[in-house]
């Protein structure tokens, strides 16, 4: 892989990722509607929503909010670029965490009680999924001998047969990041009246559009990280199927389950998520996986 090619692929990723993320969101809404016996919105609906929001009047409670909305988008795009440039997986995740942290920071900068509530709940979601994402890098690093993403490409065999326990733990983290039931604590995708609107209560118009764009990038990045589990050793297209497959599993779980409270979410994520990863690390060290 030459440097020029890497830079070109990074530029392509920055352009294509929001299109993929938005399209997945549109298909998500359509499929969810069909599962609920409705017709549902057109597949391009998320794009209409974002363009409309960009054309609304700018209203913000304070300057911090605006800064954090831009920072949210910028940092997640940076994380995606680092990922496509095949940099250290830890660096990618830490930039992603910092980006995601901008959302509750912006919400907490406003005195509205709804916004405060949403910000706290978003922080609880962090508490639940960040340990899983961070710990998941350890078995990956053990197998591919190092944290850089490029090592996984050079590893030569698919990771999934060795790391399927870690993969299941990552699916739990994905559900929390995508705010799907049973983990839609901070701002539900379905009930658009979740303690007014949870963490995005005080964001409106163009700033809400920035956050929506950021979520599209975030989803594209997370699905690509899941795709890493089958990126080498022939059959590279399986990585796309794994990414889209896990997205579809999220949809099924979302429509089949009720939301649960935050303490259950944290307990479940910490106990099941971390123990799956710990078992995987143990098995790798014993040479069983």
């Amino acid at each position: 892989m030459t440097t020029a090619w890497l830079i070109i692929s990074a530029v392509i990723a920055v352009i294509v990722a929001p299109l993929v993320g938005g399209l997945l969101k549109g298909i998500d809404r359509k499929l969810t509607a069909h599962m609920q016996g409705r017709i549902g919105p057109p597949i391009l609906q998320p794009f209409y929503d974002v363009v409309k929001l960009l054309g609304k009047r700018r209203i913000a409670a304070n300057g911090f909010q605006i800064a954090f909305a831009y920072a949210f988008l910028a940092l997640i795009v940076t994380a995606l670029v680092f990922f496509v440039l095949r940099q250290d997986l830890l660096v990618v995740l830490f930039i992603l965490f910092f980006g995601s942290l901008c959302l509750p920071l912006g919400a907490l900068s406003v005195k509205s009680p709804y916004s405060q509530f949403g910000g706290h709940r978003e922080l609880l979601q962090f508490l639940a999924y960040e340990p899983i994402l961070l710990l998941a890098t350890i078995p990956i690093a053990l197998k591919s001998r190092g944290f850089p993403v490029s090592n996984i490409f050079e590893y030569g065999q698919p990771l999934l047969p060795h790391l399927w326990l870690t993969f299941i733990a990552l699916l739990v983290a994905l559900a929390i990041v995508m705010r799907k039931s049973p983990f839609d604590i901070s701002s539900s995708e379905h009930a658009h009246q979740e303690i007014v609107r949870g963490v995005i209560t005080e964001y409106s118009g163009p700033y809400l559009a920035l956050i929506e764009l950021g979520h599209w990038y975030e989803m594209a990045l997370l699905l690509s990280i899941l795709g890493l589990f089958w990126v080498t050793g022939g059959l590279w297209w399986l990585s796309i199927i794994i990414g889209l497959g896990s997205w579809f599993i999220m949809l099924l779980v979302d429509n089949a389950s009720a939301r649960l409270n935050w303490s259950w979410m944290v307990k479940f994520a910490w106990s099941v998520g971390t123990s799956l990863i710990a078992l995987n690390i143990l098995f790798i060290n014993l040479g069983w996986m």
Partner: protein
Amino acid sequence: MGLLSISRAKSPWLLHFDCGSCNGCDIEILAALTPLYDVERFGILNMGNPKHADVLLVTGPANWRNYRVLRNLYEQMPDPKAVIAVGTCGCTGGVFHNCPNIIGGIDKVIPVDVYVPGCAARPEAIIDAVVLALEKFKGYGK
């Protein structure tokens, strides 16, 4: 028609405020959100947050008790926005028009774009009213 106008017409987010209605019209608004009428196929979503809403649906007559709340909600909605008065009470005050606590129709407090008559208004008429209100967005900013 530009991309922005198309998007505005395809993604109206509703805010529903009950100004003191008997709940007859409110039930009809909620009926429009059920799978039978499924307004999401037009991109319509029922929002609980005035800062995200494009269209304000008001039921019930304007009254001295909560007209400030109504005006506050209206002012929190970012432009472009539209207001729909649903039901006879929302349009004129209805049977309550000469009560001492009633101001009259919603248009005595905030500017109304579309009136939906009926006691109670039918869900089809409410969906029609939203589609009519979208006409306002098409020419916005020109």
